[in-house]
């Protein structure tokens, strides 16, 4: 018997033991967060989802979590440890955990993995994400109408499809109502660094932006917007406490229903690898109350747009839309397919700057 087969046997044994234990014990569900749960943004909402799971299932589940886990090699270590400690199901809640999730899932075939915002599925790896771009379309519309300097500042994290899609959706709808509008995109190369996000917001404002959008996880940009007396949109959570005057609305991620559904499936034994991408209609994407500082007709337009998107009557990416280089992407009336959206790595026409490679 080679060392490898002993190892394989040991792993298999562990797996079986884990499965056997799972029959009696509460289902152990792990969560891995990229930022602190107190970020009041992205990780905060995932943790709210975890708390909802605990409340819904009571003693029949046990949840564990680890926060501020860096994307990359460290994530693999954390996931392995979680799986070894007997987790039956693990939610990995950031794009950068994708490869780590798939790797660890390969070693623990009996553990069910759920990876947020990625695209690599496996037999025991489901992927799920929210159609944040639906919300981005609405805030783009508002930004286009509200900017006076015609400069919208956009604080972006990493050039991944989800972020690029958000920029495109927001720009497209701002441009529709305000042909003069310009987007200044700043990449900060982090999901969570309040000081750097604050500096980015300050730099954008100093250069004339009077509306700030963010695709990073802390509330720092909202705080700066409030301080400088300009307008902004909350990201992932309602950030109204940080910008009572600045926040016009916020895109809120509501993961609770999905988490409850998936944990239920795992308990019932009906869990299988799926690819979920929900938007406003099922409630995975919510909009915070539109600020009463917005003109009444604008609020009505935003509401109408939200209703139309939820009803499936309007798709934010409806042609004609060209790519940045001027080549045609969507013809008149054509709607973007999910595959292209999921892998979106190009700007649409009119955006300046380049997508970093």
């Amino acid at each position, binding site marked *: 018997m080679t060392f490898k087969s002993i190892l394989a046997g040991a792993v298999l044994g562990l797996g079986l033991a884990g499965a056997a234990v799972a029959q009696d014990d509460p289902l152990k569900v792990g969560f891995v967060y990229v930022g602190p749960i107190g970020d009041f943004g992205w990780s905060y909402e995932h943790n709210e989802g975890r708390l909802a799971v605990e409340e819904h299932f009571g003693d029949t589940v046990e949840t564990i979590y680890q926060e501020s886990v860096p994307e990359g090699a460290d994530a693999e270590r954390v996931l392995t440890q979680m799986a070894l400690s007997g987790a039956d199901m693990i939610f990995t809640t950031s794009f950068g955990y994708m490869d780590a999730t798939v790797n660890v899932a390969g070693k623990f075939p009996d553990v069910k993995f759920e990876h947020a915002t990625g695209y690599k599925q496996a037999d025991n790896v489901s992927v799920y994400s929210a159609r944040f771009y639906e919300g981005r379309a609405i805030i783009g519309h508002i930004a286009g109408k509200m900017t006076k300097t015609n400069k919208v500042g956009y604080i972006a994290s990493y050039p991944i499809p989800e972020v690029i899609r958000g920029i495109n959706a927001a720009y497209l709808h701002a441009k529709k109502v305000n042909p003069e509008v310009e987007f200044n995109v700043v990449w*900060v190369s982090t999901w969570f660094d309040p000081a750097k996000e604050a500096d980015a917001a300050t730099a954008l404002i100093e250069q004339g932006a009077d509306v700030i959008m963010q695709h990073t996880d802390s509330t720092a940009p909202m705080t700066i917007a409030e301080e400088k007396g300009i307008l902004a949109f909350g990201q992932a959570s309602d950030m109204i406490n940080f910008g009572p005057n600045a926040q016009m609305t916020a895109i809120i991620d509501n993961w609770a229903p999905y988490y409850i559904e998936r944990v239920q499936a795992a308990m019932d034994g009906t869990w299988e690898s799926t690819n979920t991408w929900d938007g406003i209609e099922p409630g995975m994407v919510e909009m915070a109350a539109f600020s009463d500082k917005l003109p009444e007709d604008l609020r009505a337009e935003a509401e109408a747009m939200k209703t139309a998107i939820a009803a499936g009557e309007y798709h934010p990416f409806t042609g004609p839309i060209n790519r940045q280089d001027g080549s045609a992407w969507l013809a008149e009336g054509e709607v973007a397919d999910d595959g292209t959206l999921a892998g979106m790595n190009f700007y649409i026409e009119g955006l300046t700057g380049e997508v970093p490679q």
Partner: protein
Amino acid sequence: MDLSSINLFVLIASLMVSATPILLAGIGELVVEKSGVLNLGVEGMMITGAVCGFAIAVQTGSAGLGFIAAALGGAALSLIFGFLTQVLMSNQVATGLALTLFGLGLSALLGQGFIGVKGIDVGPVPLGPLADIPGLGIVLFRHDGMVYVSLLIVAGVWAGLRYTRAGLILRAVGESHNAAHALGYPVIRIRLAAIAFGGACAGLGGAYLSIVRVPQWTEGMTAGAGWIALALVVFASWRPWRVLAGAYLFGGLTVLQLNLQAAGVKVPVEVLSMAPYLLTIVVLVLISSGKGASGAPASLGTRFHDSG
């Protein structure tokens, strides 16, 4: 690309604000290292200062009291390190790392009640007509008080180390604790004082983030600034004015790249994020190749026991 939207004076002013946290933490750590102690817990002391400062500033409405609380909080935490390494003679590297982890956890606990609380407004120091000087006024005379305090601390540390008897003793302890001990200087007490000073400065640096720069309390908000401060001391080869230059350089790189991006210039974001560490490594290479004068204290990181 539209560089005209960047106002150079505003840029320099933002750079100074951006650099102040690492400047404060760096100058404190310089004093600690000059006394022969390596405290890797800067990040932990900074974040503790950030939460203490924010909490007190919000409750009293006074930024000044907030900063005092931050300095006390940072110093208190650093004295745990001081007690462990100087009295119980634990390993400095391991204890310093532990201090960082402890500080991050402790601050998260202390900050529970302050998440989502609005910070206070800290205005610029009223400098009257000076603030209206074109250009220079924006760069130099419209800052909040802490920017000036940080510059005063740098000048004070420089003058103190260079011209005072206390500075000379501190350096002697850092170069050869046995010789200093033989001359009758209380090595451990001097080092504890240096450690507390370093902790206080790190605390001020952290509080500058939570009270002025961001301004809010968020867990983990220092996000690695403490490590940059540590790199900064090496980069500066243990000289106070070089700490200032290095802090403005490191802080400047961040602010500059954000501004260039906002103006639509394509910049290699990842490379610039690495830059502080790369530059530090370059300086280290220069030092060890003997081309640059090393200011590293000879007893740095070694244990001292008065049995000799």
